[in-house]
């Protein structure tokens, strides 16, 4: 699943300026045959960017993995996103 994470690191939250993996928005990734399922959250339930972010996620995964032909993305707010979910890289970029 590391290669899928690497693909998703290309999807940047335009306001925060950090990718969605380091922000801790990706909860789970699984693969069955040619299908990838991603369970993720957003920092904001009222954010209209959800469709754009999901579309970019699909685009990068499919582009980088010719063996995959379907990407399913499920958005959940349970558990809610917390600052502690960010990677040390993101924490460092945001000034500790």
């Amino acid at each position, binding site marked *: 699943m590391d290669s899928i994470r690497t693909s998703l690191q290309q999807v940047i939250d335009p*306001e*925060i300026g950090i990718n969605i993996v380091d922000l801790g928005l990706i909860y789970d990734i699984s693969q069955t045959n040619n299908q990838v399922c991603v369970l993720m959250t957003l920092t*904001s*339930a009222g*954010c209209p960017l959800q469709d754009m972010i999901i579309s970019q996620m699909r685009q990068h995964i499919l582009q980088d993995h010719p063996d995959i032909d379907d990407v399913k993305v499920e958005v959940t707010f349970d558990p809610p996103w917390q600052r502690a979910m960010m990677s040390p890289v993101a924490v460092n970029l945001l000034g500790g």
Partner: protein
Amino acid sequence: MLRLPKLVLLVMGVGLLLHGLAAGALRAGGPALIGAEQFAHWHGPIMVCGFLGVVISLERATALKVWFGWAAPLLTGIGMGLFIVADYGPTGALIVLAGSLFHSLNQGLVLARQPNAANTIMLLGALIWVTANLLLLADYTVPQLVLLWMSFLLFTIIGERIELSRVLVPNALTQALLLIALLQLLVASAVALWDYSMGFRIYGLGLILAAIWAWHRDLAFRNYRLPGLSGYVAKALICGWAWCLLAGVLMLVFAGPSAGPLYDALLHAIFVGFIFSMIFGHAPIIFPGILGINIPYRPILYLPLGALQLFMLLRIGGDVLTIGWLKYWASMATAVIIPLFLLSMLSLIIRSASMKK
């Protein structure tokens, strides 16, 4: 929801914006375009409840994805459209009120999905909008209600900024500062219903505190050095907060008149300086979110953003120093820059679409 109905709602919002700008240009002494003499006195409500009401409620409905969510922008747009075609009437005001109630319902659902301070503040903003719309029906005047409408926008924007600031280490001192600022904005909006001048002074102090909070907590002040879109958004937002600070100072110093150049300066520092800097910054993010169309970032977006700052400074200078010709030409330039910015967004969309082919 399909892209086309969302596009129709967005076009309705832009249509209201153009009518609001035409009304504003006429009030500033410019030509009467698109029959603006019929609705010039509703300039403020058309801009706030019409354009911004439609766009903000459309943004929320897009995120919420429930069928009744779209009632908010649809009703708001239709209601304000009635203000334009039939002058003010209780029917139009009632429909706008219904739109704001649906927007509050939407914000309530967002809060239920994600209970936190940011969503609570945005719900409060929506309820303030409902209150202003109710009072308009009860024959309160626009100058009495203007701070309530301003608070609807400020609470919405501040709520969104708090949401993003959650990536930073929490800080009790700045939280307390923001709480005081929001309470001041709320109290001032109510006080202005009875004592206009006092309301504006309290509001001014609230704006200054909100700008100080933003300086410490808004991500924009950390991201302005980033390249590309993130850096552009951050710089636009910083311009917006600078206007918030300036508007606060102007309100503290010049609170009093409910008409004339100083009134013009107090209101437009926030409604154009602050709000449109935020819009110019967020448009390349929000439009793709609503329409599902990729809008590539181009540095040319700095041009309208810079022009907006320059001409708004000249306009406020013209107001405060009572230099009529300066205020007039700067107002006309501002009214032109806003549609030009939208055209530049449209050209980026077309360019992106043609590159895909």
